[in-house]
């Protein structure tokens, strides 16, 4: 599924790197615990999280995650956007909860890692 399709399913608002929306992803991982994200070997995934700070972006950079969905309209700071742009990372805001987003994407065929 493309990230564009994902954003439509979750009523997402794209904050940056719109030009990469045709990127195809197969997996998703939902976590607020960055330590857990850092143990994932799988690539080609989106991160669904309620944790909005600079380390969310840094962790995704290290883990080669190229799309982050922030649940419940968490505030994405300017520094976060600038770091995401530097790493060609798509940031998406969704009004829905982590549970809701995860459920919708699972239903649409996005795979779970574990």
């Amino acid at each position: 599924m493309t990230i564009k399709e994902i954003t439509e399913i979750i009523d997402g608002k794209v904050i940056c790197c719109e030009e990469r929306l045709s990127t195809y992803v197969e997996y998703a991982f939902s976590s607020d615990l960055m330590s857990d994200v850092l143990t994932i070997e799988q690539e080609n995934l989106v991160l669904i999280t309620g944790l909005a700070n600079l380390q969310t972006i840094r962790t995704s950079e290290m883990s080669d995650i190229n799309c982050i969905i922030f649940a419940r309209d968490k505030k994405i700071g300017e520094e976060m956007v600038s770091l995401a742009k530097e790493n060609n990372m798509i940031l998406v805001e969704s009004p829905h909860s982590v549970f809701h987003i995860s459920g919708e994407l699972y239903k649409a065929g996005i795979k779970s890692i574990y």
Partner: protein
Amino acid sequence: MQFRHKISGGDFAKAGNVASAVKKILHQLNINHSVSKRIVIALYEGEVNVVAHAYSGIIEVNIDEEKIETKITDKGPGISDIEEAMKEGYSTATPQVREMGFGAGMGLSNMKKNSDSMKISSVPGEGTIVELVTYIKPNAG
């Protein structure tokens, strides 16, 4: 190729700057992606540890044709029981560190998983040294 970076304890805005710089260098050197990812993850975990627990630290990275050696030296409270600290789930992290998405007691074991060898030495009240080696060619070690 060698480089050395300083890290400030408590400065979460900059945590990851060194790992990010190393990631770019490894990419330029055309190091195998999975090897590079292991190094970068281990280094980032180490960097976050220094920021979370120590007053200051130095990261030294030494790259040769065979391997990448990383030495993280910090001035800080040290680790009194390294065996205990290596156990998953053991953490002395502050609430501030947990708010950043860390402090679950998974960092050291993830560093071990992402390196071919890891040595820790520590003097309580003075600081900790973590040395990591990752071989560039699989099975070379």
